[in-house]
């Protein structure tokens, strides 16, 4: 007999979600499909950011890391003319390497200093893009990044990703892969060791966990996946410039993670989903939107610091309290 436990719930739930995303292109318009593609890229981004937060290290440079992946893709695909199956892994590795360069000095700092120093290092990289016209294109960035394709026109296995539906499926595959990797890490011994660092750094150190090394490693893994998100983004929009990777975008990423929460694997997913819906609904109010999101950020940090993922537990606690009061009264 099939035991219906949590992991089965999870399996069924994930399958339902995957089926939805697989049939989605038949249900929505081409414009919506592009939004959906961006949504998937944002999911990778938010989940990889959450990985950093498991050790307690919130950074302000994750968007820049995504940019590193995007720029690496632009340079390799356009200037070197390499095919996507070379470009994408290289973009991820380059981003992981830049993350390593960031992480080594940053691992000497903690908490707020870490946060702000990561911002400064990110700005450094953004200025590198602005300054060097070759190969980064300065303020105008890199335009006309070739769309990826498999095979050549006429061959039987030819897939053209100019077609947004094809690119959507391409992104979906990578999103599922990235989420699977992150889910495995989340449930592993390594994942627990990383979370223990956030819980009590001194204690982790005392049981033989090399805290500095672990923090550097988390940074690199997280950077690798941010690089993947960046590479997909570069292929999706075809042109990138330093303005794509400004602080504003980083604040939106933080809003997703604050609104959803980062304690559980599901928090950032809830965050990206709910905020993407709000973002689309407020399209007519575009110029007021930053203020609205700013307000949402403040309200969550002040009133619901754990994010939406903690809401069920809070409601349960509240109901218990009132029922107890009723019994007592």
């Amino acid at each position, binding site marked *: 007999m099939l035991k219906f436990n949590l992991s089965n719930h999870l399996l069924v739930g994930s399958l339902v979600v995957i089926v939805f995303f697989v049939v989605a292109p038949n249900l929505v318009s081409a414009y919506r499909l592009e939004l959906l593609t961006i949504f998937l890229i944002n999911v990778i981004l938010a989940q990889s950011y959450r990985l950093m937060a498991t050790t307690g290290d919130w950074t302000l440079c994750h968007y820049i890391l995504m940019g590193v992946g995007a720029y690496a893709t632009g340079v390799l695909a356009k200037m070197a003319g390499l095919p996507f199956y070379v470009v994408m892994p290289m973009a991820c590795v380059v981003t992981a390497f830049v993350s390593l360069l960031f992480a080594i000095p940053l691992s000497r700092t903690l908490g707020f200093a870490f946060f702000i120093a990561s911002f400064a290092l990110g700005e450094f990289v953004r200025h590198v893009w602005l300054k060097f016209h070759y190969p980064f294109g300065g303020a105008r960035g890199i335009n006309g990044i070739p769309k990826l394709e498999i095979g050549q026109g006429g061959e039987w296995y030819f897939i053209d990703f100019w077609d947004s539906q094809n690119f959507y499926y391409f992104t979906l595959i990578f999103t599922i892969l990235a989420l699977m990797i992150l889910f495995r890490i989340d449930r*592993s*011994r390594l994942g*627990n*060791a990383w979370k223990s660092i956030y819980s*009590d750094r001194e204690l982790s150190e*005392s049981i*033989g966990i090399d805290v500095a090394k672990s923090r550097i490693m988390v940074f690199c893994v997280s950077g690798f996946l941010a690089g993947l998100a960046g590479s997909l983004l570069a292929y999706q929009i075809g042109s990138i410039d330093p303005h794509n990777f400004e602080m504003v975008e980083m604040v939106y990423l933080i809003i997703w993670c604050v609104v959803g929460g980062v304690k559980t694997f599901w928090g950032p997913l809830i965050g990206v989903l709910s905020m993407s819906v709000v973002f689309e609904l407020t399209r007519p109010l575009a110029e007021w939107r930053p203020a609205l999101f700013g307000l949402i950020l403040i309200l969550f940090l002040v009133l619901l610091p754990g994010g939406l993922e903690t809401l069920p537990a809070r409601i349960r606690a509240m109901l218990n309290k009132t029922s107890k009061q009723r019994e007592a009264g």
Partner: protein
Amino acid sequence: MSFFLVENLTKKFGGLIANNNISMEVEKGEIRGVIGPNGAGKTTFFNLVSGFYRPTSGKVSFKGNTISGLSTNKIARLGAVRTFQRAALFTDFTVLENVSIAQHMNTNSSLLNAIFGHDNHREAESLERAEEIIEFLGMQQERDTMADNLSHGLQRQLGVAMALATEPELLMLDEPVAGMNSGEKAVMVGMIQKIRDKWGVTVLLVEHDMRTVMNLCEKITVLDFGQKLAEGSPEEIRSNPKVIEAYLGADDSVT
């Protein structure tokens, strides 16, 4: 080669000499206590041997390796593991998870294993050992309780159990009975004895509570004003006039 050796250990903070030229040797299998009146430099001493402070001069060696100046995790990897005076636990995790995280050094926690593999045989062994430690603690009932919700005594016990889960050769305990009632103290004393007898772990403890140290330790080192004042068996220490004077001077009695 000595098992655990402290040679001429000195720590200065600015003009203040917190530890002055302390030397001692702990043999394998011993339970050693380090005591002293308030302000004797016990905490500094513990922080020096556990790798939290770097000594001004002198050195600490463990199984022939110099450990003074190494980070705590490197010292732990050599087999000398410390505990904390406070109830240090991973509060968001259950008792079993706490013990299992503490097995970090003896399990495969590589990234590749996290993503692709599961060394099932080894995992089963680790789990078995974790269960064994929990049984040893008598905490089977609390196995799945959040560490945050345990009583103070149990939290401190779990702290020691986590250190034990790292499979150390030397356990360094920082005031293991601080803040406990007499019942909890007795349980902790029994536990430390069993750790040595059953698992063969050498114990070095720094403690304020005289009675506990006298009951538990075979050999005691007394610190006063940052210096080593005396060393010997509990009987010798109890009858040492210098020790009595130091404790009387500090308005604390040797019992």
